[in-house]
């Protein structure tokens, strides 16, 4: 199993665990946790898509990467893809915001109904 496949497989496991948790659990807090785990899996997936074996982080701090003045063709052969990493950075922050909002709703619902069982909230059911 190559390194890249290992990352993809771990991402798949995290996504499936999170999805199963969100779909099967009856407790609202566990469902939120499931979403958070799925979030982590998606982040790992995006980061691993940009991963290229044997290359270093996209930080140019080594003068040897600046071989030909200005062109940096050397660096393009030696670093991993910076774009998925930038996307993951955005996704993590958005994930924090979404999780916080979900937890706030859970707190509110618990204060109203006194239970965390998702089956107990029947008002929007038809």
């Amino acid at each position, binding site marked *: 199993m190559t390194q890249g496949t290992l990352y993809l497989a771990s991402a798949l496991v995290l996504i499936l665990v999170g999805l199963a948790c969100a779909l099967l659990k009856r407790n609202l807090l566990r469902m939120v946790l499931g979403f958070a785990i799925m979030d982590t899996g998606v982040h790992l997936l995006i980061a691993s898509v940009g991963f290229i074996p044997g290359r270093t982080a996209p930080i140019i701090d080594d003068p040897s990467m600046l071989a030909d003045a200005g062109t940096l063709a050397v660096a393009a052969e030696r670093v991993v893809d910076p774009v998925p990493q930038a996307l993951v950075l955005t996704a993590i922050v958005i994930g924090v915001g979404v999780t*916080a909002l979900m937890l706030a709703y859970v707190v509110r619902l618990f204060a109203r109904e006194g239970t965390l069982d998702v089956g107990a909230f029947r008002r929007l059911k038809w």
Partner: protein
Amino acid sequence: MMGRAVTVVLLLCVAGLFWYLASAGTPAELGSVSRRYVERGLEENRGSNLVTSVVVNYRGLDTLGEVTVLFLSVTGVAFVLRRRRDDEDATKGSAADAARRSVPASELVQTGARLLLGPMILFGAYIFVHGHLTPGGGFQGGAVVASAVLLLLLADRKRALPHGLMSWLESLSGFGFVVVGLVGLGVAGSFLANRGVVPLGTWNRLFSAGLIPVIYVLVGLKVGSELAALLDVMMRGEKGGAG
């Protein structure tokens, strides 16, 4: 039981689709956009950390949107957890519950918080000031600063945070981000432009990469105060529930 079976089938479908798409393999070379960023990023922005160059400069508008989303979610949490005077559930918390919550944190936590607060905020500031040189940046540094505030709140539940200062810090840093973008629009002809606005400086120095560190410091201040406000609202909501 029916739902459980449907869920298992759905999960298997997700796994199958995933492996079908993943069997194409991940690219072994940089894509054309990434290659352009890597080859020209240093020349155009003078920032060592190319991820920061992408986040703050090339996709800077997305980052402005991202900061806005975080702000909206904090506002949403504050709205959902707001305390109403006529809230009937305010009396629900039992007396034992309230007593348990009013117990002060242990001396270890209190002393640790007092000792660590300064270094943690300083470390957060270090991370967002060096965002263009090392792994890290405004969001990461802001999260470290917010965790210092969390420690403070854990050590003393009754402590009131300086709300006026925090909302001013948050508003001004958000405003500053837009102003920096508009300065780029006015001087160099594109929103959040970096080249041609201020001197770019020397590669791999603290004062380099033009406006990128300026923007990341603003983002760090904004994220730090936003997350601190979020934690404060959540812990206060908990206390409000107990009456």
